[in-house]
């Protein structure tokens, strides 16, 4: 077990700046997810920590060892690759045993570790098979078992579930969470799937354009995004951002006035509000503002509404039995303790609560 620490990592591929000064610490036994859109540098960061890529600048520590100059094999890590990279010419047993064989582990330890890892991943009965005879989900299990068998100080996972079909992904996600909570291995996990990140992480590091833009617990990242990018990237549908006029210490939405937590210098302010934090009413109520329904999408657990408010569009979710049709005017009440105020020009949150 060990912590991971990276400091001021920079990496350029040709003219493309993949990482511009990333610092991050993963505490001992913590499960951290690197989340971001493709091209944001999350996989590059993971590969630099693994030693498969060299940073142009910056240092990497695992525990109290500076591993910046060490080759991957000397870093005491294990990794699960996106396409599994399960060796096709070796049996499942030999695949799981690969790291232990390289360490020249004793035959007793090798057998015990392989069997324990296989049992954890429920693949004890596949040990004699070759990868070609396995399904994608089973290969994925072999890849994870291979990583667990070496009892690594840190475990790195690069989009391990992205090649599985939706149902299997859901199943493996829960299983991984249980497994890694039990083994308490320090884990850094890369994904572009915000639901996966929310469900698994102790902390999420949201990355965009080569930087970490927010690093916090999942619910914090969800409810208090650091900027419009995070609010828009996490959550489906994304957070609404409404551009509102400012009068003194208040912002106005039609008849509704909302108190600002901090003085605003410009004439406008951005209000971030999640679709589920807008309470819909068919008649006017106190603390509401009117919006016209454009589209109603029944999604099962709730209805997703697209409404127009002036020239701006807004999404809101309402219970499935809510009687509504397009063209109707609804009165929306934003949950006062769930509002996020942002600067309209920079997109940054005005203050962290």
């Amino acid at each position: 077990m060990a912590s991971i620490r990276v400091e001021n990592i920079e990496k350029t591929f040709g003219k493309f700046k993949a990482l511009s000064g990333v610092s991050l610490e993963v505490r001992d036994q913590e499960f951290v997810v690197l989340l971001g859109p493709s091209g944001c540098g999350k996989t590059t960061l993971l590969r630099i920590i693994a030693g498969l890529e060299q940073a142009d600048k910056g240092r990497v520590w695992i525990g109290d060892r500076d591993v910046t100059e060490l080759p991957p094999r000397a870093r005491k890590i294990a990794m699960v690759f996106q396409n599994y990279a399960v060796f096709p010419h070796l049996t499942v047993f030999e695949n799981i045993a690969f790291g232990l064989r390289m360490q020249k582990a004793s035959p007793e330890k090798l057998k015990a570790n392989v069997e324990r890892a296989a049992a954890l991943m429920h693949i004890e009965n596949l040990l004699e098979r070759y990868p070609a005879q396995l399904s994608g989900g089973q290969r994925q299990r072999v890849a994870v078992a291979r990583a667990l068998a070496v009892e690594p100080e840190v475990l790195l996972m690069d989009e391990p579930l992205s090649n599985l079909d939706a149902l299997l992904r859901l199943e493996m996600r829960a299983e991984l969470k249980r497994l890694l909570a039990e083994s308490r291995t320090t884990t850094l996990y890369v994904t572009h799937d915000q639901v996966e990140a929310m469900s698994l992480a102790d902390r999420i590091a949201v990355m965009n354009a080569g930087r970490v833009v927010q690093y916090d617990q999942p619910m914090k990242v969800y409810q208090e995004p650091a900027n419009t990018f995070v609010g828009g990237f996490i959550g489906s549908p994304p957070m609404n951002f409404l551009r509102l006029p400012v009068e003194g210490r208040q912002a106005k939405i039609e008849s509704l006035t909302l108190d600002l937590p901090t003085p605003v210098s410009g004439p406008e302010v951005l209000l971030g509000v999640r679709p589920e934090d807008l309470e819909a009413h068919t008649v006017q109520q106190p603390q509401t503002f009117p919006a016209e329904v454009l589209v109603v999408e029944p999604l099962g657990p709730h209805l997703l509404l697209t409404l127009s408010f002036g020239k701006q569009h807004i999404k809101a979710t309402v219970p499935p039995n809510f009687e509504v049709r397009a063209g109707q005017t609804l009165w929306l009440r934003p949950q006062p303790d769930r509002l996020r105020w942002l600067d309209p020009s920079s997109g940054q949150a005005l203050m962290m609560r």
Partner: protein
Amino acid sequence: MRSERYIPYLLILPSVVFLLFLFAWPLLEALLLSVRDSGGQWTLENFRRMAADLYFPDALKYTLLLTLVIVPLQVVMALGMALLLGGISRGRDLFLYVWTIPLGISDLAAGIVWLSIFTERGYLNSFLQGIGLIQQPQLWLSYETPWMIFVAVVAAEVWRATAIVFVILVAGLQLIPKEYSEAAEVFGATPWQRFWKVTLPLLMPSLQVALILRTILALEVFAVVVALGGRNLPVLAGEAYYWYNAYQNPGVAAAYAVIILGISVVATLLYLRLMRSKQEGAA
């Protein structure tokens, strides 16, 4: 829909006719030629005459020896070159093209190139005289020194035909996803272990193709040998040529051809059997 079903057959028909006409039929003819006399009676006389011939044991010996020396040498060299090529990023194409230049040279021309080096007034003697190692030209490629002809043939063949093995192995290496090597690296394998435990096993299908191709071609070695040693280094394909041309005896020539065919088939089956990948074996 129904009328479309015969289209694939129609499309492969020309190539099938071509192969039957120019390969299968001559092959059958050669087989028949070797086991029949001029009157059309079945006989093993051709094989008897071949086996009793003065040149036959040497031809068989040198053909097999050349194959045993040339093929492993070429595979090891080509593998080394292919791995080296994988390690460079800048100027990779330049190396690739330079290394594959010999592919464009005919085997007779290659033989003549090496003849100009080893012949009495050739480059090798000029060089050795120039630096004062020998006083007068040395006769390298004479019937008294068949081992020297052998070395010259090996050198010419390795120079000429390593490129084809190289090209096959480069293509094979490119088919191996880099994640396998990376996974091995992360799980503690040294570069040497990565080569033996991961790269080499995954390269097996390409190695198999290269070995089969090169072995069959090595068993047919002819033009380079003729250019460098004439009949002083007898080989099976050369003997077939002499029996057909000089002795006007197609029957014995066909017997030689059948022997080459037999050895090639046995070698191919051995490769297929010994190098069968475990995945196939288990499936």
